[in-house]
């Protein structure tokens, strides 16, 4: 697994950061496992169609509903790891407090839009949910009528976790501004693009030396 680029110490902030990170990692792994399961489902669907003449009923519906897991569950994990793409050509050139002020503001904007989206996606979930209907469903998929609300509920849930992560990062950046820290805890540190690119390729490059024996 890749090395995280977030510093830790014994402060309350850092301890909360690591506790939340454990939850985020577990959810991200769950997303990875769903990706794996969907690959298997697709293979099974082809084989069953070709060899048995019986495709998986509602294969597309099932796939679409399970996509919500890997589209959202890892969103806070990705933010913790600094994985959401941005242009840091400017931020990487700043130093001292300036960096943390920029980071604080852009994180604050993210918090604003995330809040709006939590509301909006909650309404979207609500429109598909009703206690009085069978399966609690007021909206279902086109082919085999799977209820939509479970996958729609994943969105406000994941965004709420992201909200928590952003709040922690605001705390971290705020503390860094107040104390003029060079390497604060609980926030992803800005890396030069070169190092960032290395991180991206880490999984394939840092594998044990089997390539040489290969």
């Amino acid at each position, binding site marked *: 697994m890749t090395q995280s680029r977030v510093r830790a110490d014994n402060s309350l902030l850092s301890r909360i950061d690591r506790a939340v990170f454990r939850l985020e990692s577990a959810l991200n792994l769950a997303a990875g496992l769903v990706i794996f399961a969907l690959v298997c489902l697709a293979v099974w669907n082809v084989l069953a169609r070709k060899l048995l*003449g019986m495709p998986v009923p509602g*294969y597309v519906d099932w796939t679409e509903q399970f996509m919500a897991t890997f589209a959202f569950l890892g969103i806070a994990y990705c933010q913790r790891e600094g994985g959401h793409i941005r242009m840091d050509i400017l931020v990487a050139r700043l130093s001292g407090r300036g960096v943390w002020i920029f980071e604080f503001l852009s994180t604050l904007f993210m918090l604003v839009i995330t809040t709006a989206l939590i509301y909006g996606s909650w309404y979207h979930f609500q429109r598909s949910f009703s206690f009085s209907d069978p399966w609690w469903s007021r909206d279902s998929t086109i082919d085999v009528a799977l209820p939509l609300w479970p996958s729609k509920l994943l969105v406000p849930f994941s965004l709420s976790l992201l909200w928590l992560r952003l709040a922690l990062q605001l705390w971290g950046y705020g503390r860094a501004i107040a104390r003029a820290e060079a390497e604060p805890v609980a926030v992803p540190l800005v890396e030069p693009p070169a190092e960032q690119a290395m991180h991206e390729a880490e999984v394939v490059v840092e594998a044990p030396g089997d390539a040489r024996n290969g």
Partner: protein
Amino acid sequence: WNVSLWGKRRAFTEHVEKLAELVKEKTGGEFTLNISYGGLSKNRENLDGISIGAFEMAQFCAGYHRDKNPTITVLELPFLGVNTLEEEVAVSKAVYNHPATKADLARWNAMLLMPSPMPQYNLVGTGKPPARLEDFKGMRIRATGGIGEAFKAIGAVPTSVTATEAYNAMESGVVDAVAFAQHAHLAFRTIELADWWTENLNPGTVNCPVVVNIDAYEALSPEHRAALDGSIDEALDHYLANYGKLLEKWDSILAEKNVQKVHIDEAEIARFREVAGPIQKKWIDDMTAQGLPGQELFDLVQETLKTARMSN
């Protein structure tokens, strides 16, 4: 007003285009309908958009989300016996005017304005043309809703692909046959791959109404509302005339693409109808269980059909 449709302008959207033209003309350009093809919403979420108030008019199909609009799925049941587009208009209007239907759509802040009548969803397919019900056994058919259920009842395998994926699915053998109205067989190019077309299987059709946001409708000035209400019949007439022209060309299109017209024996269709019968029964039971007047809606369709035929 903003209007959310999808795809491209085609026979299926001509009534909305005509309505926009008429309303603009009648109000001297004061009341305009800005039609967007896919820019404002995904087609399966047009009803959500109406409920939110994101746009004022939209089109959708009942089968896209049966739980959102259970009442109008009665119009998608197999073997209702609808034979012409005029009959389809009549039964749609009757169901749309039923209080239970109005209440159903009002949950989405939506009012049903007009239907988009489509002919029966006959099959185009590849390979050996079917002659008897047994020939459908194991056939992979792209069909949704009640029509899919009907094919399942005779041993076919209804397979889920969206309209836009139908061409690739058929070409790749993911499906052997596709159920569409004629304009869609043209628009989605399934006819290019076809070996045969069932001219009289008439298993049922799909119902795609045009709705408006209730608040927006009620906020219209009396003149604007009159212009809108008064243009609906003319827009539908235009639609029917336009679709009629397409149907007239249909035979020559089949000949040009070298597609064989399959005429299924009446006795076979009667057997099909019998096998599919329980689907209508099951629909009525499901609706009743949800507290909806299923039987009443079903009877309404049958009675309206009788009246429509007598007046012809």
